[in-house]
């Protein structure tokens, strides 16, 4: 409320009164709406004994069976992400380093083409390719899709970080006689990764979210387990199972997103981050989306 907005003046007495009235009106409207939704859910019997599936499930299953299967699902989801994330990071950093450090235009250009291609394809298509053309196991098909796409995005993030460094860093490296590749490896890369750390962490959220595409290539991850449980217990139990599964997904992702935000604010305060020409650390564009809209090539150089 108190933060200065470009859109409005600091409110005077009349605007303050109006704001209070609008606040009350809209709060009331939302409460009525929520009440209405809850009531109609109640009429449909959403709050009846179907929630027992979570602690005393029917069909002679125990609560341990249900939760055990959900845990297996979480483990599978995290496993795919845990295999894919380091691979995507390594590959992405490798590609962007080659793109920066190689001497020949042709090799740099081919790196650019590879990233563009990998970024422009749907992750699901890549997974289908591994599953149906290469005939891989579901887990590895998921990992394949995640690695190819996210490596390309990581490469773009790191490239933006490299482009945002002050020019003097590279010049200094070259002038003390380091080769372009060594300059990139020893001087530019550590700084670029550091300033782009928040963006890299938010890309992890995207990777984690994309692992749920495993549902479609029949990898037994959390969403697929939810579906299996629902098919077993019956349609009636969809809602409790969905609430639990969605809760797990959203919690994990929000925790990782928070981490990215914390890193970013730490970075702002840090003294050890290279400043750009205009004196401020470049803002990492966080990449949203299943298949995230990725970075705009290099951050704009802002005039003073």
């Amino acid at each position, binding site marked *: 409320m108190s933060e200065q907005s*470009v859109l*409005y003046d600091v409110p005077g007495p009349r605007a303050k009164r109006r704001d209070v009235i609008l606040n009350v009106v*809209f709060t009331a409207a939302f409460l009525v709406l929520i009440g209405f939704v809850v009531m109609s859910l109640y009429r449909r019997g959403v709050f009846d004994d179907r929630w027992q599936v979570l602690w005393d499930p029917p069909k002679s299953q125990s609560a341990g069976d249900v939760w055990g299967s959900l845990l297996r699902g979480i483990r599978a989801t995290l496993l795919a992400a845990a295999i894919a994330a380091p691979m995507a990071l390594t590959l992405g950093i490798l590609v962007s380093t080659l793109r920066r450090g190689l001497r020949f235009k042709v090799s740099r250009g081919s790196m650019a083409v590879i990233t563009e291609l990998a970024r422009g*394809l*749907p992750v699901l298509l890549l997974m289908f390719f591994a599953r149906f053309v290469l005939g891989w196991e579901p887990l590895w098909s998921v990992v394949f899709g995640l690695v190819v796409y996210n490596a390309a995005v990581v490469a773009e993030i790191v490239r933006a970080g490299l482009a945002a460094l002050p020019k003097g860093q590279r010049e200094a490296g070259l002038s003390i006689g380091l080769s372009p590749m060594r300059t990139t490896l020893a001087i530019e890369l550590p700084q670029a990764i550091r300033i782009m750390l928040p963006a890299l962490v938010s890309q992890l959220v995207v990777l984690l979210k994309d692992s749920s595409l495993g549902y*479609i290539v029949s990898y037994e991850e959390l969403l697929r387990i939810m579906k299996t449980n629902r098919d077993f217990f019956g*349609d009636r139990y969809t809602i409790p199972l969905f609430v639990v599964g969605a809760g797990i997904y959203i919690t994990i992702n929000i925790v990782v997103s928070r981490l990215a935000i914390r890193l970013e604010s730490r970075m702002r305060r840090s003294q050890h981050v290279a400043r750009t020409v205009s004196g401020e650390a470049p803002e990492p564009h966080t990449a949203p989306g299943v298949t*995230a809209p*990725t970075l705009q090539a290099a951050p704009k150089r802002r005039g003073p």
Partner: protein
Amino acid sequence: METFIEEFGLIWGGFLATLSLAAVAGALALALGTVLAAFRVSPVGPLRTFGTLYVEIVRNTPLTLMFFFWVFVVPSLGFVPELGFQTSIIALTLYTSAFVCEALRAGINSVGVGQAEAARSLGFTFGQTLSQVVLPQAWRTSVPPLISVLIALVKNTSVAAGFAFTEMVAISKRLTNLHASDAIFIFFGIGVMYLLITIPLGILASRIERKVAFAR
């Protein structure tokens, strides 16, 4: 390769299905996202809270989960959207609008407070400040990320393949089953079809970005 040409009719149908999903969901998401962005920058507290909650939840939800919600959960509540195109549009629109909202909001936040102060001190009214000073600048900053969001949407339409809608990825799977030996060409061809949409959009985005870049 021949299979790709022989089956081109089918692939073309999938291509059009992908395009129409992206176009309809894109237009709806732009509209809904603008409303959400207006909520998030409005002076009315409850609207801001609603916008923030919506964006936080949707951005941290996998798209597959969103589809799952509309295909399996909502029908068990009694509202049964038509499976296929309709559910896909709903899921894609709701998902994408959160990202549209964030792109627009980031654009508005990137305009310096001094700009509006300068406009007001020159005697501009609220409407004039908004339409002649703030929004033109916000818009320029927002367009490239908005195009990125649309590119992501084009690729995201593929998730509909897992939920009973036949677009390009679903076609690729069907054709692979029919012509196992030519699978590689089919995938290659369909990959090219996606790139035909996404790469020009990407080039457009960087063009516009260069064109509208301005000193702050």
